[in-house]
């Protein structure tokens, strides 16, 4: 049985690799190498090693909480927790290598014990129907925002209000725009069923522009009051939130174009995740922004072709 499971995981991995393609595997390899380099450097420095461990373990915890195959593993394998542990140990190998290389023996043990605890955590987030007035003001076409706000409203609204109220502190608004700019990136992770694309009854070009313009309008509605408040208190640094807003706007457009360039109904494409992560990194490392802009142009044409399969009759 375990042989069958290993072969199943192998097939899944092979399918993902095939879907990503050779060129993108190279990009992914570079990205992983870069992240490993950062991991290697940071695990050598105190107290940074603690932050790295926390982020890594949080990432594994997130996988444990959201993975969809737990029921399958439970019903097919008696030792399903051992399987989960083995998978998490494999995922944590880069971390183990770095910790062992820098002779952090105790921390290596802590990471292993944390993985043992994580595999025993098995709770589900309770979903709630948060139908606020805000959703009613969002156009029907912007279902990503309706869904996203339903998920994150308890975080977004208090955070936005606190940021506005504390905008006299110079760091408050830029931090708020940064966090509120990252949240919408999650709205475009998963592709909708094609019926929802067809419902627009628009040509592929008009569909893309509609999606982009809705995103710009909704994000601007969040940011503009914050920017005005910042300029009111810190007029000499007026350009800071504006530049930040423009960077996020271009990354949002990039995310929308990436989603439709690799559109697969009802699923999260591996290519979308990989190219999306480049957009995410570009927020932190701005010299990658020209790459994002160039890719946006390429993905615009790719999206147009992809959407034509569904929207060709509306051209």
């Amino acid at each position, binding site marked *: 049985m375990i042989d069958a499971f290993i072969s199943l995981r192998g097939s899944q991995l092979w399918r993902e690799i095939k879907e990503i393609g050779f060129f993108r595997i190279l990009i992914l390899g570079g990205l992983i190498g870069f992240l490993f380099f950062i991991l290697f450097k940071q695990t050598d420095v105190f107290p940074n090693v603690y932050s790295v461990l926390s982020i890594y373990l949080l990432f594994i915890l997130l996988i444990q909480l959201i993975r969809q195959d737990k029921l399958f593993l439970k019903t097919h394998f008696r030792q399903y927790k051992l399987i989960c542990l083995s998978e998490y140990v494999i995922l944590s190998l880069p971390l183990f290598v770095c910790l062992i290389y820098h002779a952090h023996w105790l921390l290596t043990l802590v990471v292993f014990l944390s993985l043992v605890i994580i595999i025993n955590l098995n709770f589900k987030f309770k979903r709630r129907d948060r139908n606020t007035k805000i959703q009613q003001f969002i156009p*029907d076409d912007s279902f990503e925002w*309706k*869904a*996203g706000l*339903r998920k994150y409203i308890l975080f977004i609204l208090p955070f936005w209000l606190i940021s506005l109220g504390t905008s006299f502190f110079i760091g408050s608004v830029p931090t708020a725009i940064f966090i509120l700019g990252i949240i919408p990136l999650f709205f475009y992770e998963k592709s909708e069923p094609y019926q*929802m694309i067809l*419902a627009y009854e628009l040509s592929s070009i008009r569909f893309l522009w509609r999606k982009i313009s809705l995103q710009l309008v909704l994000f601007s509605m969040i940011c503009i009051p914050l920017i005005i408040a910042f300029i009111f208190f810190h007029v000499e640094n007026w350009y800071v939130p504006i530049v930040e807003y423009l960077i996020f706007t271009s990354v949002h457009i990039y995310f929308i174009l990436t989603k439709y360039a690799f559109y697969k109904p*009802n699923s999260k494409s591996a290519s979308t995740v990989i190219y999306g992560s480049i957009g995410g990194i570009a927020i932190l490392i701005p010299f990658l922004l020209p790459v994002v802009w160039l890719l946006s142009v390429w993905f615009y044409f790719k999206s147009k072709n992809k959407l034509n399969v569904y929207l060709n*009759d*509306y051209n």
Partner: protein
Amino acid sequence: MITIKDLNIAYNSRVKVIDSLSLSLKEDNIHGIVGLNGAGKTTLLNAIFGLKDIDSGVITYKGEKISKRDLAYLVSENFFYSNITGREYLGLFKNKAFSIDLWNELFMLPLDKIVDDYSTGMKKKLALLALLKQDKPIMVLDEPFNGLDLETCRVIRAVLLRLKNKGKTIIITSHIIESLTNLCDQIQLFGKRSHRIQLRRTRVCRI
């Protein structure tokens, strides 16, 4: 009239799913397509809707290439976007004249709850409401009775018959012929490729 002429569709350029199919489907009728799993029913519907590339042949409606503008398609799987309500989903479809609440009296769906919490049958009913809202002249339904209770099946039958009387052309598939016999004006029986039998209403009733 929907005309399908010499339609050929193959997967991997070897396995022919539809082999030289020619059909004429009259307007204002309910057409059933019955066949075993893998007989090519869904492939045909996908080809009619333009989602499956055809190797050769033509599909026309009123003498012109069939277009998605004329079609509403209910697929057999229930897929929706997470964290949106039924009402928000229906709001995507552009037909201001359609009264969601009035139609929902038939289906009694909790439209202000998020779709993720709907049962399989409720999701199917929501997809049907979306299909009705589109109000296209041709309605294509792939296995619409799967996962529905008897009462809902009865309601859907009544709705489909009413739509037919209002001039809609309906194409409906099933792998169980009994589910279509008292609904369809014509039934196409799909067996293995090229084994196709057409039954008109009188013969359908005898079956």
